């Protein structure tokens, strides 16, 4: 049976797509929200470390599965290899209703003013595509606020002296520091820095009809057993469904955006849960499949006017793939610092994000999320023996004494770090898979080194008797913080969408996820992706006159 025509299709029920679907549905548009996975609950995998979003060795707790999905990674010597979703270099994002917002660590960062003006702040960086966003912080500020209040954020307004202006405080009080945060807060203050509680998309008190967090050890990488973590799956998506205007189609893999001879989007081709090919037509198509899959979908949508993929006549789709170069330091303390108060990360230091001499951008440093036992088996000082009695003794005696401070360094985008589609390798449905190539910009290790040195100083001040740096910034980018592949901009020649996420030349095709980000900030990106969801959704609603754009 033919699917009924709707006003809007949203592809991907994650941080961006869940919000756009809700904005459109409550405004009265009929919406079909596609998700390649299903609903995820705590009971599916509970606290199983080997099948979580953090450690995926036996599979991805929140999808996608190893059986049907593949990607190709281009090695630095030009050779290629096929990678499975459970392997790290796949750059996986969860495939379930809510996507990463079900299992994330839930840090709720707003980018800073300078994150939107990287080029005018720091000038051109050789070999990069560093640029300003076409919008600034104040354009997005009301949408950040909406995300904080509708999804739910716990935090202490005004505690971060480097935060850009906010109109309204956080809706919930901050989480108390755990033991390691208390130790690090004192040390950081003695060094003249300004530590503060990490804002979290997690209930510190009852909010949105859901209970307060009870601080599980297994939080990041897992679903919440009491629903205290705030994602799109337990906020906006239920609202969208309640409106009566949104139909959620789970276990559907969208293969292609259909474009007519005038170059407008007419709908999508997809495979339903029984692998049957189907067509859904709509007035508008919004793609929110995260940076890798969004680029792949556009590139796989070839038509007469767009022979190289939708919106790709200038070869910018899939370019500037970014993530975050994680960097920091580890230290050993004489006494136990681990207090089993989950999820572990409670303290942030934002002094190293902008305005540091000689450093382009920067990032935030946080005390780390609890490492589960298997993950901890890989955390060793340089040169430590990996097995045998020494391994075991370290595991036994140091697990509660390790103190960590690290964070996401803002990567400098470059044109060659990119997503293309592979000409030979196909997935279960016969759709050409994403191919990841290029590497991070050579500047990244320099900035990471600076942050790791600062982290090590703080750990030493906190009393760590043995410290070592863990410096990031090399290799292929992407990962869960993937961004940048359909950058927004004012000049159609060097961007894919306009400032409202509307694809240049295709006025009824929108992007609403991290792919829009020109640069990725020195913070975890979830709240920014949510704000962009509201921003794009608001533009569509304001320009909709019942049957088409005004």
């Amino acid at each position: 049976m033919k699917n009924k025509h709707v006003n809007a299709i949203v592809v991907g029920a994650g941080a961006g797509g869940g919000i756009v679907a809700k904005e459109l549905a409550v405004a009265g548009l009929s919406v079909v929200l596609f998700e390649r996975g299903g609903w995820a609950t705590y009971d599916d995998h509970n606290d199983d470390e080997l099948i979580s979003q953090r450690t995926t060795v036996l599979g991805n707790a929140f999808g996608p599965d190893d059986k049907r999905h593949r990607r190709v990674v281009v090695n630095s010597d030009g050779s290629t290899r096929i990678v499975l979703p459970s392997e790290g270099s796949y750059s996986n994002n969860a495939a379930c209703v809510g996507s990463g917002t079900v299992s994330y660590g839930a840090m709720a960062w707003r980018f800073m003013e300078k994150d939107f003006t990287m080029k005018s702040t720091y000038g051109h960086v050789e070999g990069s595509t560093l640029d300003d966003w076409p919008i600034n912080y104040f354009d997005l500020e009301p949408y950040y606020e909406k995300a904080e209040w509708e999804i739910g954020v716990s935090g202490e307004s005004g505690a971060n002296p480097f935060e850009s202006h906010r109109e309204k405080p956080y809706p919930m009080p901050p989480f108390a520091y755990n033991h390691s945060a208390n130790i690090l807060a004192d040390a950081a203050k003695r060094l003249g820095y300004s530590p503060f509680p990490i804002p979290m998309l997690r209930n510190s008190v009852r909010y949105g009809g859901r209970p307060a967090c009870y601080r599980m050890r297994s939080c990041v990488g897992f679903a919440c057993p009491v629903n205290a973590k705030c994602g799109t799956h337990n906020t906006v998506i239920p609202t969208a469904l309640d409106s009566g205007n949104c139909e959620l189609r789970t276990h559907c893999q969208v293969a292609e955006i259909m474009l007519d001879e005038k170059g407008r989007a007419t709908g999508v081709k997809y495979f339903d849960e029984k692998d049957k090919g189907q067509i859904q037509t709509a007035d508008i198509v919004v793609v929110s499949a995260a940076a890798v899959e969004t680029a792949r979908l556009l590139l796989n949508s070839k038509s007469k006017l767009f022979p190289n993929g939708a919106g790709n006549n200038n070869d910018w789709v899939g370019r500037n793939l970014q993530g975050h170069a994680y960097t920091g330091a580890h230290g050993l303390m004489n006494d136990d610092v681990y207090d089993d108060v989950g999820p572990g990360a409670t303290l942030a230091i934002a002094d190293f994000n902008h305005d540091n001499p000689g450093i382009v951008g920067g990032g935030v440093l946080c005390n780390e999320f609890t490492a589960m036992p298997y993950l901890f088996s890989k955390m060793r000082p340089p040169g430590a023996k990996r097995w045998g009695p020494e391994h075991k003794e370290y595991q036994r005696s140091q697990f509660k004494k390790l103190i960590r401070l690290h964070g996401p360094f803002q990567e400098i985008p470059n044109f060659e770090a990119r997503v293309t589609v592979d000409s030979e390798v196909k997935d279960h449905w016969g759709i050409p898979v994403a191919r990841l190539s290029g590497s991070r910009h050579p500047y990244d290790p320099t900035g990471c080194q600076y942050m790791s040195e600062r982290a090590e100083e703080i750990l030493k001040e906190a009393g760590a008797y043995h410290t070592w740096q863990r410096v990031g910034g090399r290799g292929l980018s992407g990962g869960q913080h993937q961004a940048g592949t359909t950058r927004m901009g004012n000049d159609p020649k060097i961007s894919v969408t306009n400032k409202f996420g509307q694809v240049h030349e295709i006025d009824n095709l929108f992007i609403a996820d991290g792919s829009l980000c020109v640069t990725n900030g020195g913070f975890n990106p979830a709240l920014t992706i949510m704000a962009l969801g509201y921003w794009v959704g608001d533009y569509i609603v304001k320009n909709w006159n019942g049957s088409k754009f005004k």
Partner: protein
Amino acid sequence: METSRREFLRQLSLACGSVLFIPACAGYDSPWRFFSEKEARTVIAFAGQIIPADQDAGATDANVVNFIDKQLIGPYTRFQEEYRKGISAIENSAQKLFQKAFYELDRDNQTGFMEQMEAGKLPEEFWTEVNQRSFFNLVLDHSMQGFYGSPRHGGNKNYVSYKMMRLDYPHVLGQNRYESKCATAKLMEL
């Protein structure tokens, strides 16, 4: 009333008044799914040196090789060939160096052998199809997963590794007690 096979066997075991051992595939008495008995002995010895028993349980007590065996017919099917060839290369190397099976060597010889393998210094002649360092790292990683991962996958029997790391399980919030020098010192001040 129709009785399921499982129920029938349960009743039979109750009737006999003993625990009835039911192998995964009836008619074949090996407890292993993928490994041969001999291969299993090699991997048990190998994993047993990666995580040796001391005052706390080691890989053998935690059923680490049961974990690996189970995964090799599940999510790790793709590593089957590497295990088959890698174990064979370990055995051939040990025969050449010691004229004994790897699992028959004493502890020092086993660990010495493994250090050579970790550094890629075992005789090359047996390692033409499998890279000895890669295979070492693979078994190392899988042993860690089996020892520290959730018992539902066949290893970490009774959460022995959690006990060793002083991580209470099950986690009963508000009811677990932790030894901490800081906390104890503060209590003593009171």
